[in-house]
């Protein structure tokens, strides 16, 4: 499969504080990648660089062979095509819901891409039906629950039919049912051969959403591998602050070992 994203030694700072320190990563077309890392490891920054919202101060990032730079994004042809093809879902849905109603929100992207009015109306309706939020059509964002907000955010990117989906902590702060709905959605996208890159720190969902994992630690990729390989590497997970170890006792027997506190039950 073709190489989609190529990051070489990417560096990025916020006000002098480094977020990415020489990160290299390759993403092939159609793969589903999970970016695993604790908060502060640079996941969100990486996603924004992949979405050409910020640009590296060092190194290079290429999409489909073309190097992403501000001038390139300003060109109408490439710029608008890129925005349609590569979609980012932010961690905080309030940031992404800035229009007066749900309908306006989902219609925002198509409006920017200057689709015709009829096209916009039909595609927006389809997207709302897909995410099962048709009944929220005229609702303002401040009257939505967090699960509903997430679905509106997803609808607003899905309406453009992107080829690459970048998801920043898609299941955080969601109730279990909403979480599983998101996971189902991701699996659908995987099935449709879309490229899905998910940033998360929740180990329990990675197997369902990704075929490959890249572990981020302090602004660089510490390791990559299949879920099986990565999840069994306790030392790596401990170092990357994805699991923790603490003492606890079973009766009179005290020990410490790395584990994650996830109490999701598996029933078959």
């Amino acid at each position, binding site marked *: 499969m073709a190489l989609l994203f190529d990051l070489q030694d990417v560096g990025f700072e916020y006000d002098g504080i480094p977020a990415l320190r020489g990160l290299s990563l390759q993403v092939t077309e159609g793969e589903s990648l999970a970016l695993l890392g604790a908060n502060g490891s640079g996941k969100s920054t990486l996603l924004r660089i992949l979405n050409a919202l910020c640009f590296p101060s060092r190194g290079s990032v290429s999409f489909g062979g073309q190097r992403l730079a501000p001038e390139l994004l300003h060109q109408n042809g490439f710029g608008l095509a890129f925005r*349609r093809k590569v979609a980012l879902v932010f961690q905080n849905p309030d*940031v992404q819901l800035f229009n007066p109603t749900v309908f306006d929100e989902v*219609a925002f992207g198509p409006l920017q891409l200057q689709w015709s009015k009829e096209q916009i109306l039909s595609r927006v309706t389809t997207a709302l039906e897909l995410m099962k939020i048709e009944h929220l059509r005229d609702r303002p964002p401040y009257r939505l629950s967090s699960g509903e907000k997430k679905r509106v955010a997803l609808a607003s990117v899905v309406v453009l039919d992107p080829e690459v989906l970048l998801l920043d902590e898609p299941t955080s702060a969601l109730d279990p049912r909403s979480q599983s709905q998101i996971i189902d959605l991701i699996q659908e996208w995987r099935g449709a051969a879309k490229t899905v890159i998910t940033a998360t720190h929740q180990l329990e969902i990675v197997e369902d959403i990704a075929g490959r994992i890249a572990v981020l630690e302090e602004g660089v990729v510490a390791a990559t591998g299949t879920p099986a390989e990565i999840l069994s590497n306790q030392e790596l997970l401990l170092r990357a602050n994805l699991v923790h170890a603490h003492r606890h006792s079973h009766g009179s027997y005290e020990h410490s070992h790395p584990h994650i506190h996830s109490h999701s039950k598996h029933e078959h």
Partner: protein
Amino acid sequence: MKRGNFIESSVAGFVRALGRVLMSEEIANRRGLLQALDPRVRLMGLFALVLAVVLAHRLTVVLTLFLAAVMLALCSSVSILLLAKRVWLVVLVFTGMIALPAIFLTPGTRVAAFAGGALPITAQGLSAAALLIARVETAVTFTTLLVLCTSWTHVLKALRWFCIPPEAITMLAMTHRYAFLLIDTASQMFESRRSRTVGHLPRAALRRMTARTAGVLLSKSIALSDEVYLAMQSRGFRGEVHILSEFHMKAWDYVGLLAFLGAGGIAVWAGR
């Protein structure tokens, strides 16, 4: 002054603001005369009537317009009790307080005296006070009717037809949308601080706490705007604002528009 008062009044104010929003959406969805008209006609018509109120020189004309406002309310499923409580009483008290001294201070023909002749009451003073109160009451009634019977998003989109630049409309929409988020955030911050302070706070400390809460809110606001900017860019925004128009004028909308403008015109002519 009790520690709770200032915080409570601010939070209460916020909650009231939110409550008003919810009520307004509900009335906008009812069946009624105003609700049946195109939002642009509603906007233009009610603005025209407010203008007529301000242009009229005679109290009788203003009072007639007030009656018209009451009729519109009745025909639009807006409870008179609601208007009385929320609008008329408040305006009466505030404008009344402001207008009262005018009865004594306005030069003109004396008609009565207060306090044994020390405070002369003039006819002009009485007329001026009455006119002011009547004007304010009527104008606020019209604007309240507009807001109660129209969803906020429709108000915004209707403004498009008043030559207001789309960037301004987008900013109005975004401000409105994020005002509620900030109100929520501010309420939560107040609540959490209140639960953390024990006993009475000296006023200086209360001031510092307010400034700090405001400061945190400001930082969050600016950070939020940065993120929103990225989110907008991510969906293709490059500075040009596009607004989807969704209004269609029907026959009775034109009739309604003519009726509004006609009524306004007559009022201005009669009241000149």
